[in-house]
């Protein structure tokens, strides 16, 4: 039977919802148990949140001053040590956090890693996208070795909180940590808007906005309906918005209930980031734009006229 270890993602003392999405993926393996490992300088608050997720058997904590920031070279040896305590699977979300640390864990364990699990066929057989989601492959991990994987969060709902609270225990990982990697700084956009990866509604803008000033109409529309803001690669490359807003193959993969693409033509690399969205709305002046091929509702016209109209109508 499978015993699954999930590595919690957290920032600023708050658990990221990507962790609960990993719990859903772990449940699909039908395991004997699911444990969550929290590595932090002080894991108390995050562990408390993790313990409430339904289906979690226990929460393990590794409190060390070195764990104040999620540095892969620091975390990986500790994760590998805990994984060695009889776990058959180690999962983390396929966010920049999980993508950074998990291959390092896999290499320390001497095993391959499965990236971006979108569905589970059995304990060692999974589906994942390749070629920007233009093909889906079924991959089989060797039955004899630990399965190390990242979970494509857009494919899985966040597991809900349960009625019981899982026990929280301090884990043991007596490993020496390197000093060759040092955290300097994290520059975060300050915003009261919902987080792009977890938002139920997202308004995205593309190159057609033309400038960062013009992007204001996207923010205004988003604020009107309580949506997060996203962008195409072209808009980020042009400097209209910061890079953490990029949606697509190499940016964020999201699955909101409503996705509104404004002035985005719809390159395949962008479409792969939104294919799991509930309803896609496209607003573009080019009636031939590929975005209309996947949109549930399309509106052809000048976005500078349509967007303010839409904001007023909502």
């Amino acid at each position: 039977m499978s015993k699954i270890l999930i590595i919690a993602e957290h920032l600023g003392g708050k658990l990221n919802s990507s962790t609960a999405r990993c719990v859903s993926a772990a449940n699909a393996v039908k395991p004997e148990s699911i444990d969550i490992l929290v590595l932090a300088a002080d894991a108390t608050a995050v562990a408390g949140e993790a313990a409430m997720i339904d289906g979690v058997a226990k929460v393990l904590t590794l409190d060390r001053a070195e764990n104040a920031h999620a540095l892969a070279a620091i975390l990986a040896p500790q994760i590998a040590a805990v994984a060695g305590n009889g776990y058959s699977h180690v999962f983390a979300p396929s966010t920049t956090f999980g993508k950074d640390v998990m291959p390092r864990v896999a290499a320390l364990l001497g095993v391959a890693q499965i990236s971006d699990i979108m569905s589970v066929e059995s304990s060692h057989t999974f589906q994942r996208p390749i070629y920007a989601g233009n093909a889906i492959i079924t991959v089989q991990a060797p039955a004899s070795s630990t399965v190390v994987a990242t979970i494509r969060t857009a494919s899985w709902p966040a597991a809900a909180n349960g009625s019981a609270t899982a026990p929280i225990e301090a884990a043991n990982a007596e490993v020496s940590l390197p000093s060759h990697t040092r955290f300097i700084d994290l520059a975060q956009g300050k915003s009261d808007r919902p987080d792009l990866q977890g938002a139920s509604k997202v308004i995205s803008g593309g190159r057609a906005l033309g400038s960062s000033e013009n992007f204001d109409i996207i923010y205004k529309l988003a604020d009107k309906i309580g949506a997060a803001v996203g962008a195409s690669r072209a808009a980020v490359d042009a400097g209209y918005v910061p890079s953490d807003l990029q949606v697509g193959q190499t940016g964020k993969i999201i699955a909101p209930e409503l996705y509104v693409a404004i002035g985005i033509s719809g390159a395949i690399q962008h479409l792969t980031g939104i294919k799991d969205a509930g309803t896609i709305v496209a607003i573009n002046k080019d009636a031939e734009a590929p975005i209309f091929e996947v949109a549930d509702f399309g509106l052809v016209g000048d976005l500078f006229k349509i967007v303010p109209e839409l904001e007023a109508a909502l």
Partner: protein
Amino acid sequence: MKILVGYKRVVDYNVRIQVKPDGSGVVTDGVKLSANPFDDIALEEALRLREKGIASEVVVVTIGPANAQPHIRNGLAMGANRAIHVVTEEAIQPLTAARAMLKLIEKEDPGIVLLGKQAIDDDCNQTGQMLAALWDRPQATFASKIEINDKVARVTREVDAGLETIEVDLPAVLTTDLRLNEPRFIKLPDIMKAKSKPLETIQFADLGVDSGDHLKTTKFAPPAKRSKGVMVKDVAELVEALRAKGLV
């Protein structure tokens, strides 16, 4: 200081991939092949570090079939000093690629290994991190800015929360994100010059790399298709449609 650059050949990013009807793979016959875009960025960054006098030599490495030689010559034409072609006709998974790179590191003793953050064919995003672990050296992934001061690299990383800056002691593995730089175009005279640059060929089997314990791909399938929706004529009709679905 020497920089080793991973330079993978992949199906060009503009090609719309088709899955073979029998599910045995994707159609690659006759499709355009190019350098992995992230690897072009890695090579460009290495060349800039050489032009600034920080690096003395840039070596491009390709692990791939014998017919990838024109591809690796492009890396030389772009400006690398020399190339190493590890020849294998097998598809190489990230752990094996990392093990093979480690063998080359042991021989070449680079100060920096620059790789793309992911290859746009398998989208794995693993090799750099695995290599750093096997080499027991630091990693700075998803770099959008790299500054080298003596034996330390200060790297700005594109992470979900924003931009993170870390410092790593060299030697280290750095992987590139899209906004690190804009790769230069290859000029025709440089293609001629590249023909005389050194290109070392190593058979993969001669590296003595363990390629076991791997993932087996049992099936390829096309993705679920979203069906084309309806076109609305104006904002009023759009709002009505969204209200009907309870979305606004």
